[in-house]
């Protein structure tokens, strides 16, 4: 990854009649990064991708690719290629002709086309399948053909619209790694649209989260997980326990807070959120909580509660613990070390948390 920007979106807006699909989108993408646009369906992420590809013109703002303003340049003349959600494999062409399709638009010699097609197919591990019919391919193979067909064009940016959503879980996880490796080997900028947070987090260098047409936060996955810029993102990515808290003192980068359950703590200030007033909200990820029968030692905050529900997930167990003074049960997740479920509904337990695990979510915006 270099520091050079390959794509710059400047004040992009897209309206369909009265409906604003994307509003005031500013985004710089670095050359060679794997970037994901993440958000629930209808948040405008696909529209944003289609504006980069040239299938849609922004109502306002600029799309700049590699220093060149793309206004008035149609999709077939842009240095981008796309992997479609449905893969859009041409059903009347075999694998080889599908992959060669774009090269034939460029007046490249037949022998070079053949070489590049077979290289591209090797790359996606479909070597030698040139003559396989498009209708004879499995879902995973179609995905690979779609990748090869786009990558063979050597685009400056590869755009991927929900590329894994049509695959079953096992295959999807395998393809996540393969696509990541491919991207790193080729050094091509990938821009992927997805609604799947795990997909975005496992594959991306950076993630941009969109809600209702707005780009809300752009960060690397660990930062996004640890320092979400608001409640919406905190609850969209991963699981989060939300707790009200009162700000008692602020000093440099730290906040001293008191909560109805975990007593007083000094936590790190989250630079991504707004802080006004004393009523703030904090978040604690379920896996950051310790659960034990006795009051645990060495934790900055502890509280006693009663197990209400137990959810067994296999790799971990979630306990929902009812704590006095908190409306909703607090969820604690424990890795399944010894194939035992230690607590049952009704058991009295203690929860412990380190102040480093407590996330400052800024001004309390919830009603609970």
């Amino acid at each position, binding site marked *: 990854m270099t520091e050079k920007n390959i794509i710059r979106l400047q004040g992009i807006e897209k309206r369909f009649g009265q409906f604003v699909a994307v509003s005031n989108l500013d985004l710089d993408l670095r050359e060679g990064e794997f970037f994901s646009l993440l958000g629930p369906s209808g948040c405008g992420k696909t529209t944003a991708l289609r504006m980069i590809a040239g299938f849609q013109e922004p109502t306002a703002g600029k799309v700049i690719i590699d220093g060149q303003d793309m206004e008035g340049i149609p999709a077939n003349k842009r240095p981008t*290629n796309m992997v479609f959600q449905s893969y859009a*494999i041409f*059903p009347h062409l075999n694998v080889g002709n599908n992959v060669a399709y774009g090269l034939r638009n460029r007046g490249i010699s037949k022998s070079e086309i053949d070489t590049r097609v077979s290289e591209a197919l090797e790359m996606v591990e479909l070597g030698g399948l040139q003559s396989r019919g498009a209708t004879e391919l499995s879902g995973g193979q179609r995905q690979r053909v779609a990748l090869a067909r786009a990558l063979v064009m050597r685009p400056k940016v590869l755009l991927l619209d929900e590329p894994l959503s049509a695959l079953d879980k096992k295959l999807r996880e395998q393809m996540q790694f393969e696509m990541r490796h491919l991207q790193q080997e080729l050094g091509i900028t990938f821009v992927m649209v997805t609604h799947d947070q795990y997909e975005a987090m496992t594959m991306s260098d950076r993630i941009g989260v969109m809600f209702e047409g707005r780009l809300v936060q752009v960060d690397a996955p660990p930062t996004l997980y640890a320092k979400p810029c608001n409640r919406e993102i905190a609850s969209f990515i991963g699981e989060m326990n939300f707790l009200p808290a009162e700000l008692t003192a602020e000093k440099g980068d730290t906040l001293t807070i008191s909560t109805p359950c975990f007593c007083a703590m000094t936590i790190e200030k989250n630079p991504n959120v707004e802080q006004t007033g004393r009523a703030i909200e904090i978040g604690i990820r379920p896996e950051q909580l310790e659960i034990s029968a006795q009051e645990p030692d060495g934790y900055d905050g502890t509280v006693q509660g009663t197990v209400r529900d137990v959810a067994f997930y296999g790799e971990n167990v979630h306990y929902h613990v009812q704590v006095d003074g908190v409306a909703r049960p607090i969820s604690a997740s424990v890795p399944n070390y010894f194939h035992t479920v230690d607590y049952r509904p009704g058991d009295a337990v203690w929860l412990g948390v380190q102040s480093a695990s407590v996330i400052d979510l800024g001004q309390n915006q919830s009603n609970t």
Partner: protein
Amino acid sequence: MTRPSGLALYAFLYLVFLYLPVLFLPLFSFNSGTIVAFPIKGWTLEWYRQLGGQETLIQALVNSLLVGLVAALLATSMGLFAARAYVRYRFRGKEASEGLVMLPLVIPGIIVASSMLVLFISIGIKPSLTAVMLGHTFLALPFSVSIMKSAFDDFDASLEEAAFDLGSGVVETFRRVTLPIVAPGIVASLLVTFTVSFDEFVLAFFLSGNQPTLPVYIWSQIRFPAKLPNTLALGSLLLLASVALLVVAEYFRRRSAKSTI
């Protein structure tokens, strides 16, 4: 689940009622007697053999083939573009125009025929094969539009976008992706619209002038009792050809539905 008894019998009678009259035509075309009545006197292929020597009949057949071909090509190419627009885009007046395109299916033929005759004469097109071709294109258009619409319904729009994304222009995308994928639908539409034109009588009767198409020729021959067995033979062949064309058309229509993955 048990079926109500008698339902099968009802269905059988239903089909008999529908198709028995049609089957009389071929049956009597093999009758060696010239009177169309039971009992059948004997079996012969004579009436079919005689068809080959009749020059006016051959001319009418050629006229019909020509009209059918032109009408099928015109209606199918117009239907192809109209259907793509209906399936792909949303635009003002779309529903009204879709309804209007289908209207020829329900307007009485005699009304269409007489208005077209008046219109064509007033703009200087004399009753001729050209007039019939134009009239048949109008009649065949709803068939073409609906067949092509079903071809485009199963056609993933991102296929065209993918072609565009890979560097093809609009024309190139149409030629290399759209056309090949809807090709079975085009064949089905050509066959069906050809059959619609080939069998059509009322419009052709009004508009053909002194260049009769086959149905018009058959009608003119029915007046002569001696020629009736020939007419029956000719009608049977027409029936066979129509059924064959429609079966092939259906085969292609289904292939077009299956062509997208």
